[in-house]
């Protein structure tokens, strides 16, 4: 739990976007994980299994977000630090989040895992259960889309290069 808590919360927040309550989704994800604990192979990396559960839960929450918008949610995580610096960082983060909202779910997923969480395409492929080439092609398409739309959100256009 301690090892995966922050990671699951981060996935819920970044894959779910602003319409999903990350605490709520993470709670559901861990409830599912506990229920399916016996399905976990102790000899294999639990990452893909946990990620698959989180992705399914987040997808469910995104479907329900139209209804859930009427109820109070806690989308923000508690941050501590310089208030002015936090405000500036938060404003930038909001713009990035709006830009990511213009991507398809598949593109958003690889952008979050590769560029935001700084994993290699190979790692992401294993986590998501996709060939590395597919991850890279999705990144390329996402990059084109992000470069097209970045200026509209007040962001720079120099996105990371996709490796060979």
């Amino acid at each position, binding site marked *: 739990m301690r090892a995966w808590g*922050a990671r699951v919360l981060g996935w819920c927040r970044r894959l779910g976007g602003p319409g999903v309550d990350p605490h709520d989704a993470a709670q559901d994800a861990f409830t599912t994980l506990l229920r399916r604990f016996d399905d976990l192979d102790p000899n294999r990396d639990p990452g893909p299994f946990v990620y698959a559960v989180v992705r399914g839960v987040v997808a469910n929450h995104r479907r329900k977000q139209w209804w859930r918008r009427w*109820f109070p949610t806690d989308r923000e995580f508690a941050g501590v630090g310089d208030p002015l610096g936090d405000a500036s960082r938060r404003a930038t983060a909001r713009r990035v*989040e709006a830009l990511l909202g213009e991507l398809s779910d598949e593109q958003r997923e690889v952008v979050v895992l590769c560029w935001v969480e700084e994993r290699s395409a190979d790692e992401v492929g294993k986590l998501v259960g996709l060939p590395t080439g597919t991850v890279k092609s999705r990144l390329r398409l996402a990059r084109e889309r992000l470069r097209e739309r970045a200026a509209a959100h007040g962001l*720079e256009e120099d996105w990371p290069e996709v490796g060979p």
Partner: protein
Amino acid sequence: MNAELRAYRDDTAARPGDVERLRRTIGRPKRAIAPIVAGVALAAAAILAVAWPRAAAIQPGELAEGPSALIPGVDVDLVGAAAWAPTRAGAHLTLRSGEIAVGVAPGKGLDVAVQTPEAVVRVVGTAFTVRRSLDGTVVDVRHGRVSVACVAGDTSLLGAGETTTCPTASPGLWLGRARALLEKHAPTAEVLDAVRSGLAVATPGSALAAELRLVGVQAQVADDPRAALDELGQYLATGGQHRRAEAVHQGALLAFGLGGCAQAQAWLAAVAPEAPGEAAALGCR
């Protein structure tokens, strides 16, 4: 862009407090949305049930002209001046002038009354019109049954299509009606009816009573000048001071027309000895 991505990553990263909070909530029953939805729906329904009729109804007091829904089941359409107040089982309206059409939904036990200076019109489930005019208060029943209690004392029960008039209780209104009838050359009897009705409610010896009598005289001059002269003579002989000089002059002219100088002088001597000059003005020596 890397800096912007880092800002996003830092902003969306979970803090140790968030992880601890998540740890505490795992395994606990989740906040169920269905009861919240049901609660919100029930609260909204309750608010609507309580607030809707009040929101739809207009505030008690002066009524604006045009159609209004006073309370559920009571609709009015006003052309004139009126006020209203809610009652335990309906509404009470006071019509000061003009006309008001009232619609009361039947079968709801609504008690609606329209009061004028001349009448109280009370209804339980019907549609009717109350109109104030020179004649008094006119009640027209469109459908249902209406109880009309005139201030003058008559009470009648009207059915659909029936009309009644509660005569005005104001001598001023009677005077206005008598003058209006006179101006439009209505039959003398109608003018005299209005005069008599006005005199019945006017204070004896008042200017209004005197004016009513003089209008009565004017009405009779053409049809029955002798009766008009008698009425004028009676008015002056009993000390009538209102427009006395004009009455003396008119009487002298009338008497002269009926019997020449002899009658004019005799009439003046009998009822207005203070005006010997009137006969001279007519050329009588």
